[in-house]
């Protein structure tokens, strides 16, 4: 499995032409990670990702805390997508503890997780904009993100780290006039999203720059085990919300966004289309949500899981996010494994960057929808 190099570009050899560049960790073009890049002139000969700068051992920490106390710190890897990273944990723990979730809570969960997907994707898009030198595309999503953050804050009481989902439902009910406010803001937000087309997605400079770069073919996407927008931009129709619907996703009306090209442009466009789809889901969920009812199943203090294991996955902003929880009958989980999309997409990086031009490095790197903190856990 090696990516082809353009003809005439040398592989590593005893030659002066090869220059080693450390991209990161203190680099405006990398997150909290390092890419060791070898360039021959303008072409990247090899790329070796070196993550781990923000590794904090969440999985180990989870073994020392009970099922409820795990909630605030398990969302730390992706504080911009904190609802979605708690979602599989809650589902898995509900499996282990045998709890049923009230119907209204399911809808609230869906709304919160879709809003959070927008929050994450806009943050990601903002950084994608500034990576490509488009400062307006940095400011607009960062500003429009506030719509979703305000809604989430009205729901959960916190702007970023919500700690909103718990096994058995959600922490609190939505406020009184939430639905009309949500509808109004989401309508405007959708309008704003459509304005990104002109200045960013249909911008010929951007298209020239990203189309045809870092192409991941369908077969490679499957073999490399990619997920999320990387997979769907390569033409594989796989969305866990459709394929393995959790909570109430099977009742809702939405489509999976799939593009065929597999290049940086398609990879950057799929999350954007997903955001538009999220708006649809939120509106639909608001319509179908039961108007009243309980939102949380009461748990015993220190609930104990059975002697079994559960693996549940959801579709987060970066793709499939799985939680593998092993219980041994104690209040604390025996082992928690977080299988994150970022880490699964990391494997593409050396493959895609090999043979690319140095100028494409940020475009390809960030289009992989990679969140360093999440990948390190």
């Amino acid at each position: 499995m090696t990516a082809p190099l353009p003809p005439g570009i040398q592989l590593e050899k005893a030659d002066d032409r090869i220059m080693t560049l450390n991209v990161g960790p203190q680099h405006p073009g990398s997150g909290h990670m390092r890419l060791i890049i070898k360039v021959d002139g303008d072409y990247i000969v090899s790329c070796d990702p070196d993550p781990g700068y923000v590794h904090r051992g969440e999985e180990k920490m989870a073994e020392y805390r009970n099922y409820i106390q795990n909630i605030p710190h398990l969302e730390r890897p992706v504080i911009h997508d904190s609802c979605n990273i708690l979602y599989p944990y809650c589902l898995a723990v509900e499996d282990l503890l045998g709890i049923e979730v009230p119907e209204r809570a399911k809808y609230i969960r869906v709304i919160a997780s879709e809003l959070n997907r927008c929050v994450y994707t806009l943050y990601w898009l903002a950084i994608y904009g500034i990576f490509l030198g488009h400062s307006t595309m940095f400011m607009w999503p960062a500003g429009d993100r506030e719509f979703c953050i305000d809604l989430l804050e009205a729901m959960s009481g916190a702007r970023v780290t919500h700690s909103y989902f718990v096994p058995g439902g959600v922490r609190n009910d939505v406020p009184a006039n939430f639905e009309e406010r949500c509808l109004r803001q989401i309508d405007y937000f959708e309008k704003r999203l459509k304005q990104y087309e002109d200045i960013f997605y249909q911008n010929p400079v951007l298209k020239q720059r990203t189309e045809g770069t870092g192409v991941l073919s369908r077969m490679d996407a499957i073999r490399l085990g990619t997920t999320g927008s990387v997979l769907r931009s390569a033409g594989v129709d796989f969305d866990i919300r459709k394929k393995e619907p959790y909570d109430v996703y099977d009742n809702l009306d939405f489509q999976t966004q799939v593009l065929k090209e597999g290049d940086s442009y398609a990879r950057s466009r799929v999350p954007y289309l997903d955001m538009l789809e999220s708006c649809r889901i939120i509106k639909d969920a608001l319509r179908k949500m039961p108007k009243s009812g309980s939102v949380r199943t009461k748990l015993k203090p220190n609930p104990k899981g059975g002697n079994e294991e559960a693996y549940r996955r959801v579709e987060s902003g970066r793709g499939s996010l799985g939680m593998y929880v092993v219980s041994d009958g104690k209040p604390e989980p025996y082992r928690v494994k977080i299988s994150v999309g970022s880490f699964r997409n990391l494997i593409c990086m050396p493959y895609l960057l090999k043979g690319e031009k140095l100028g494409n490095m940020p475009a390809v790197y960030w289009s992989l929808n990679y969140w360093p903190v999440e990948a390190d856990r």
Partner: protein
Amino acid sequence: MSSIAPEFRLSRFVASLTDIIFWVVVIFTLIGLPIVLILLFYIQLPVINDKLLTPYLALTWLADPSRTLPIVKSLIHTDFFRITTFPGFGFAALLAAGTIFIERKLLAKMQLRVGPLYCGKIEGILQLMGDGLKLISKEIIIPAKADKPIFWAAPLLFVGTAAAFISLIPVAPGWVVADVDVGLLAVFAVIGFFPIITLLSSWSANSKFPFIGGIRALHQMVSFEIPLILSLLGIVILAGTLNLTEIVESQQHYWWIIFMPIGAIVFFTTILAELERIPFDLPEAESEIVAGWLTEFSGMMYGLVQLGSYLKLYAFAALFTVLFLGGWNGPMVWPPFPQEIITEGIKMGPITLHVPGLPLLDQEMLNGTLWFTIKTVGVILVILIPRGVFPRIRIDLLLHTGWYKLIGLSFVNIFIALTLVYAGVLGPGGLIQ
């Protein structure tokens, strides 16, 4: 903690300031004054009202306010004034500073934010001054293995070259620092220095990212210099001269942009590339190569490079105005100086004050400056807007644009000019004249 960042002490700061002032005074009195006195013997002194303006006479006249104006007028018409203040460095630096403020505010508006706000009470108008103070008080760090002479000289040379470029721009009739017969060629010669300075500074830092940035800058500037040169050939053909003042004077009735929009577009694109502005800011692409050739510059060195690049921005915008938008040409909107003040003096009730030396500046010049400034600021605005609209381009696409599209378009422009000449539309004996 104190070894890393000792607290700011006002007393120490004041002491250092007084130290500096003391040494400046000492050095000036010991070295500067003798030089000034010696120079006074050799400088040809102006003649005002049939009297040679000796320093003594100047001092006596300064005491009499009605006589200061001739001195000021004579000073205004010296080359020293031209170089330092009006068409030269001061004017350009003022416009450059304005450009920085306008850029930040305009970009902020386009991005739905506020921009500088607090510094200077009114919409952050003193932000630039604050930034300058900050840069001056920052430590200058030079990498260990850097080539120190080149590294120190590069920012200064950059500013100097930009200033030399400015000296060639005519602002108003007769108001140009250097009125050169082959002005346009001189412009090309001056532009040719920028890639060298960039390359040398990037080389001298002994760091990888500046080196890559410098090489990119070299490729970019070099590739866009040919379309830049070729796109102006049409104007030279039609105007029949290389002197920038004469080119402006040839546009009294119509601007060259009317006949050569293609040339204007090509020239504008090359301006963006030569200035390293988005979408062509590859040498400073921060997500790929940290800050390109500016990576190792810190403190005031960075400030000087920024000053140089904004001076360069002004110079290119002014060149665009001069070549395509008719320079200072425009309807006379400046009110004429009231004639009776010159002949009869200013009447203030019973007293009539006779002021010799009025008008200080003639109406043509003020009107020309007004038009020139308006047009230049307009061009600067147009140069600033792409920064909010376009992402950065890639280097191979950039070179492709430069070598394939822009050179082709500039040849199209040349052929348009030739057609206009040979079809008898323009030129000697043409239809429009």
